[in-house]
């Protein structure tokens, strides 16, 4: 078990809980209870029932014929885009809302970048009748308008974060501040495998249903549960953690993380954390972080709001450090072109985040007899305005 979290909350040298004392009781309450709650039979039953009947799981593993032909290999798409609310994010929010209920919390807060996690949180709050507040960077509010309105329709309050670059990092800061100020009745549903221990491990476990299904579905389709490559985009890294999880110990499966290179890794406008980051501490964990020499966090950039984050989850920092996962990156243009390509070859308009996973096929160059699974983390409805503004189709 080289890649699981240790009892102190670390993956190798990354992870831990770097939090001010004001957050300690909340985080400690979670840490001491999360495993016992998650593995109660009753919890498992309720969780899997909701994933099936409400989210629509298992999501299909679809053999993409025309895309496969184009890249002269065998490509399966794991259709997380078909989840209720349009992305993998809801796997995690269902798990965390059930956990919050059992911890006796009746108020939920969340941060969101693209708005997908915010929508997924607002959705489960509506489902469970809980009060929901979502922090979102002012810039993201402007570029992800439809998701803002979806959250409002679902009854959530969307609060703009106006500090920094006014994107995901700043929304996360605001959510943490809210939690410090409201420690007893509020649960913070973090949207990715980031934050203080136990969040990275907890969110990974909730998302691991993705690779659990891939294994079973490949066994059915190919007579072999192991693909040659699994590709997933990495913002904070939750869809990737879910898609990789059950393959981590199977070292013959090549795992590929696709980061956002923005306008180019060395352009100064990028979110390619493994290429540009150094070990640091942000949002409660020690991880790879884009920062200045003086330890100030650098404002990242990507055309895709969901990848616009200066760090990655500590699990991914460890997977990078141990070279278990190969990290590649795609620029804005490469991702947008891949999004159009998938739309034209398979009739699927992907989220721009997910399009980054498709875009790295060019660099990966799989063999003709390879089986490649691409985690299609979300659908492109929310990105219509960005596609239109980009315009090259």
């Amino acid at each position, binding site marked *: 078990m080289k890649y699981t979290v240790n009892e102190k909350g670390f993956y190798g040298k990354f992870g831990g809980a770097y939090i001010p004392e004001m957050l300690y009781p909340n985080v400690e309450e979670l840490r001491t209870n999360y495993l016992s709650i998650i593995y109660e039979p009753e919890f498992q039953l309720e969780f899997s029932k909701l994933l099936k009947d409400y989210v629509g799981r298992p999501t299909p593993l679809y053999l993409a014929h025309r895309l496969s032909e184009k890249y002269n290999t065998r490509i399966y798409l794991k259709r997380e885009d078909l989840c209720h609310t349009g992305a993998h994010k809801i796997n995690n929010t269902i798990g965390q809302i059930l956990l919050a209920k059992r911890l006796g919390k009746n108020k939920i807060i969340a941060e969101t970048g693209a708005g997908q996690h915010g929508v997924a949180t607002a959705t489960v709050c509506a489902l469970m009748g809980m009060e929901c507040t979502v922090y979102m960077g002012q810039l993201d509010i402007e570029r992800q308008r439809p998701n803002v309105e979806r959250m409002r329709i679902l009854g959530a309050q969307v609060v703009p974060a106006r*500090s920094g670059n006014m994107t995901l990092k700043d929304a996360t800061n605001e959510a943490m*501040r809210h939690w*410090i100020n409201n420690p007893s009745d509020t649960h913070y549903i973090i949207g990715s495998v980031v934050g203080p221990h136990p969040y990275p491990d907890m969110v990974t476990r909730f998302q691991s249903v993705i690779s659990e299904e891939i294994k079973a579905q490949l066994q059915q389709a190919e007579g072999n549960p192991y693909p040659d490559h699994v590709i997933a985009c990495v913002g904070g890294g939750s869809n990737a953690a879910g898609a990789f999880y059950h393959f981590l110990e199977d070292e013959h499966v090549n795992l590929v993380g696709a980061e956002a290179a923005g306008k180019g890794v060395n352009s100064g406008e990028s979110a390619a954390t493994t290429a540009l980051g150094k070990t640091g501490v942000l949002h409660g964990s020690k991880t790879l972080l884009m920062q200045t020499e003086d330890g*100030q966090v650098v404002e990242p950039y990507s055309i895709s709001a969901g990848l616009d984050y200066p760090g990655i989850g500590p699990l991914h920092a460890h997977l990078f450090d141990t070279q278990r996962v190969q990290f590649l990156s795609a620029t804005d243009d490469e991702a947008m072109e891949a999004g159009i390509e998938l739309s034209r070859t398979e009739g699927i308009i992907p989220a721009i985040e997910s399009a980054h996973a498709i875009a790295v096929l060019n660099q990966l160059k799989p063999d003709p007899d390879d089986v490649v699974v691409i985690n299609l983390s979300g659908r492109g409805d929310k990105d219509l305005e960005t596609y239109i503004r980009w315009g090259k189709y």
Partner: protein
Amino acid sequence: MSRLKKLFQEKKQNVLSVFYTAGFPKRDDTVSIARHLQAAGADIIEIGIPFSDPVADGPTIQASNKIALDNGMTVKLLLEQVKEIRKSVTMPVVLMGYLNPVLQYGFEKFCNDAAAAGVDGLILPDMPLDEFNEHRALTTSLGLDVIFLISPTTSPERIAVIDGLSSGFVYAVSSSSTTGAKKGFTSEQEEYFRKLKNAGLKNPFLIGFGISDHQTFSKASQFSSGAIVGSAFINLLKESNNFESDIAQFVRSLKA
């Protein structure tokens, strides 16, 4: 004996610690503000190391961090400013900040350079106790006091652990909140202060967060060795055209 220990030995009550952000409002104000605080009769100065993502801070200190960084403030520069401060300031100087800038500077190098510059204590609120244990021998050998926070939700067992690891003083956060000036205390807060007073801590403790005026300062001092003022002082600096007289007036009005 460390400057902090000496202070608390000589002064058991009404210790006033004043927090301000390094490099704010102007980059080089760090030094003159320290001098004015000494002249005005403050007891400890706490200088904040600016950080891009101050998650435990409310709007006032967030804004001062941003201005300081825009002014070009760095850890290296701060340590040079402390050297300058030490030429005339004899009171204890404590540096407070988020862990990341310290880690990038290099934790050991930071402790060595801080001690050499004349820093007496460190407050790093997001440094886990476990991680500090790895560095404890170093800070002890350098004579650096390391001060940890407790909050109203910290359990009695944990308070004992934190008190055991801290030296100089313990920083008691007055409420579960981010930093910011508030008006008055609730009866629950007073109950929490009373419990702390009777908890038999080995260290003296100062109450911080929400101390903004004479009333909150003197109330807090009834239960503790004194209190820490931050946001209210930053607000003053933001408005002030004359540090010398305004800081003197501010300290006088707090202690009044």
